[in-house]
Every structure is written in C-alpha cells, then in structure tokens.
C-alpha cells in the first residue's frame, strides 16, 4: 500500500445539500492512506463553511453549511488537492501498543477462529501480533476503530449470530479487519481477546485513544497477567 500503490481515482458526489462524499477507487483499505492525507490537508486548510470531516475506509465525508459556502466552491478547493495528493506514509504515524489477553473468557471465539482457519490458537495470536496495522477509521460506536487489513489467515467472516452484548475492550476480527469494542455493545465480530485500555473517554481531549492514520500493534499478555 501507500508508496508502492498507484494513486486512486476519485469521485465527488453530493450527500444532500450540505455534504460531499469524496470517494476513492479502489474502495478498499488500499486507498485509506490517501483518505488520511486528504483529511489532514483539509483540517489544516479549514475551507470557509466546513463543519465536519468524517473519514471512511476509502472515502471522506465533507460536511458544510450551505448558507456559508457552496458545494461547487468546495469542489473547486478539492480538485487540486486530490490531483496532487501524496498518501500518508506509515513512517509518519504514531504507534500505539495494545496489550491483549487472548483466548479464554477474554477471547471466547479464539478457538473457533483457529478451527475455522485450520491452525492452532497460538498461531492466530502470533499472526495478530505480527505487525503494525493502520487505524482506517472510527465508526459504528464512539471510539470504535476499524483496523487493518489483517492477513489472509485472519480474514474470517462475521459471526453467523451476533451477540447482544460484547464486553468493553473486546478485541475482534471480521471481514478482513480487526477492531476493539470501546464499550459494552452488541456485536457480530469474533472476539479473540480483551484489552484494559480505555478507547473512549468523552471528557478527554481528544476523546478517543486512536485516530484514523495511527498505527497499532497488539501485544499478547502472558497467562495470569492483568489485561
């Protein structure tokens, strides 16, 4: 990705009269470093009338006040930015270590995921801890990070039956990505472990532990250690 990838193709489309969706092709995590770069450029630039920026996997939602600016004005601002956009590089990111207790009560789906993949649970853990992943976006719930992509081995589909409640701190796999539940929430991802880190604190600035463009590395805690 990034440096070795080719620049994405862009579409800019209205989402109502007060937002534009700037979407990259391919619409995969491969385009995400460009989304992070665009998000940072627009955050610096603060075009008049801009009200919010929301990074997605391969898109950026640009919300604006239509009484202060016009969609066309913002499109004219975006065009040269997109043409000259350099992807956010992994060397520029801060890396946050996430200590995780894998398996057991903390990761009730670890055995099932291992069985699904035809490997030992320890291999799933080793793979999950093997590299720095980018945070692609936050969504679904306050502070929930979409992280990845994970390896082919760890690319499991969602659970057939979602759980009505997943404990806060649960580290999960689904659809080629990994994520962390910031709070007790319903969830359809496979839970392989749990961290004690607090991912969302509305009284903190910023309120989230992670932001799109950060790097994360998972570290397995020894049995008996506190998560």
């Amino acid at each position, binding site marked *: 990705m990034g440096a070795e990838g080719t620049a994405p193709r862009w579409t800019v*489309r*209205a*989402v*109502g*009269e*007060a*937002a534009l*969706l700037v*979407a990259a092709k391919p*619409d*995969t995590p491969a385009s995400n470093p460009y989304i992070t770069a665009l998000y940072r450029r627009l955050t610096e630039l603060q075009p008049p009338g801009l*009200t*919010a*920026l*929301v*990074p*997605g*996997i*391969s*898109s*950026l*939602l640009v*919300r604006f006040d*239509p*009484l202060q600016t*016009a*969609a066309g004005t913002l499109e004219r601002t975006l065009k040269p930015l997109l043409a000259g956009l350099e992807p956010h590089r992994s060397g520029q990111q801060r890396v946050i270590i996430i200590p995780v207790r894998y398996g057991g009560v903390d990761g009730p789906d670890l055995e099932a995921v291992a069985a699904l993949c035809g490997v030992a649970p320890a291999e799933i853990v080793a793979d999950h801890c093997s590299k720095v992943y980018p945070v692609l*976006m*936050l*969504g*679904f*719930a*306050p*502070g*929930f990070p*979409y992280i990845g992509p994970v390896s082919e081995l760890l690319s499991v589909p969602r659970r057939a039956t979602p759980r009505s409640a997943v404990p806060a701190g649960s580290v999960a796999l689904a659809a080629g990505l990994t994520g962390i539940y*910031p*709070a007790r929430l319903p969830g359809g991802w496979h839970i392989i472990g749990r961290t004690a880190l607090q991912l*969302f604190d*509305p*009284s903190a600035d*910023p*309120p*989230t532990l992670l*932001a*799109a463009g950060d790097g994360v590395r998972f570290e397995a805690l020894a049995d008996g250690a506190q998560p």
Partner: protein
Amino acid sequence: MTAALRVLGADLPITVQDLGRPTAQRFGVPTGGAMDRFALTVANRLVGNPPDAAALEITVGGAALEVLSPVVVAITGADLGAELDDRALPLWTSVYVRPGQLLQLTRRRRAWGARAYLAIAGGLDVPVVLGACGTSLAGAFGGVDGRPLRLDDILLRGAVHGDLATLAGRRWPEDTMPGYVDNPAIHVLPGPHREHFERTALDALTETEWTVGAASNRMGYRLAGAALPVKTASIASHGVVAGALQVPPDGAPILLMADAQTTGGYPIVAVVVGADLPLVAQLLPGDRLRFRRTTAARAVAAWRALDAHARSRIPEDAALAALGLAGAGPVGPFG
C-alpha cells in the same frame, strides 16, 4: 444555578438536547441534537436563550414536571396536550410558571406530531461535554448522566439575564414555521451511490407511499412500502448524515436521524433535504409519508428560508405580555 423542574413522570424518553456535536462525528460519536432543530431553536428564542441552549425533547406522551422555582418556559413542536395545572398551555408561547405548578404533556392531539421541546429561561444547566450539552445515548454522556430523564430527576437552570416577567407572553408568529402536516411530502435529492441501484430505484422511492415502521427511534426510521431495487449488499463504510435513506439488501429503506451511527455500509438511494427534517422528526411509527425529488438549489433556498424564519423578530403582544406579568393563571384564551 437554580433548581427549576422535577420529573414526576416520563413514560417515553425525555432527553436533554441542543444542536448536537457535528465535529465529534469523526470520533464515532453520533451528531445527535434535537430531532426537530427548528422547534428547539424557537423554544429557546421565546424564552430569551441562545438558539443552541439545552432544552428538553419530549417524545409523545406521559411527561409530568413539577415547577420548583419561578421561571419562564416555552413549549414548541408537537401538540402533545400540554397542560399547566390541568389547564391547556399555549404552544409556541413563553409562559411564566410558579413553584408548585404541574406541567404535563399527555398524547398527540393532532394528526401529526411526535416531539415537543420545552425550553426554560436561562437554559438547562448541564455540563458541556465534547463541545455540547445534549444527551449522547450511544456514548452514555451529556445531558443528565448520558441517559433519558427518570423519576425524581431535578433539572437546574442557568442564570437569566434581565427580567423574567418581560420574557413571558411572547408568541411565535404562525407564518414563520415549517409546513408541519400529516402525510407530508418530503423533498429528497438523489444519493451518492447510483451505480449500486437499478435505474428505477429513485422512481420507486417517489412513487411509493411509505409507512414509518415500529422499529423507529432517534437513530432512524425503518420504512415499509416497497422493496427498492438495490444491487449491492454492502459497500466500504463511509460517513453518513441525518436524512440519508440507506438501503439494506431487503430493499426497505432506513431513514437515518439525529442519533444515527456516524458511518454506514449500505448504499444511499436519496437524502432528505435539511429544511424538511423537522417534518420528518414529527412522525411516529404508523405515520405515512411520500418523497418528492427536488434540486440542490431549491434545497438550499428552502434551508435559507427556514433559517430566516428561525431568526424572525418576535412581535411584542401587549395582551400576552400582560398575561405574563399576571403570572401563569389565565392562559385559557390561547389554549
């Protein structure tokens, strides 16, 4: 700060709301805020507050509030049979209320209406969290402990600048309101995902009479009426806005509202224009609506007109002002 109201009953969710937290959307925090932003803004203006002050959003039915100190209130939005000590309370009007009086909202009284807004002079005094005062149910913060109100909650108000008596008896002019109506025709713009739908999808959307489904709340409304021809089951997660009509594989659209998740993975067929969101906010499960296509230029013009309405000068009404000075007693003629 002063104790203003005590909750004696809350059958359906009552939450503290303001104009929400748009810049927190990137953190996964729903924008939130009042479902009917026009009604909240006007309730605040009637009692002399800034338009984005914290007020109560009362969803149809079952609210009872005891007045704890002399204060001026205004109720706007849906007609939910508001009463003060068993006498009808005029809507869209600021009223002086006294300690010991009982404010009640019971049920929908007209063919439309789901949410009423109760603002108090001085504004509800709740902490600012992530830049706003409104309740974030998803994040369990804001408002009163991040939850709907419950029995015996006591609401505090901020300081009132000026004379309470002069704030009472102000009535919002009826010709500067959204076109609240039952079975509304709601204006939409085409969504950003046309390649994920059959060409007939927008026509199907605008030719169908839709019913708001039972599984509808501040996050969104499930709509029943037709299966829209969607070609793609899911797409890469992307930021969404209130008003977006996203279409899951079964073809039954979900109209995203104030507390919608910040991102979605279903294609968006169309987006309700901002000026019509107050009309949508006043629908309940079982209500019907239609969609009508418009243009971006008209959508912005409608937004500008509604914004101008919300800034209207509040006419002085000598008779109403006299009622305000006399206390909250004789409100009958306007009930």
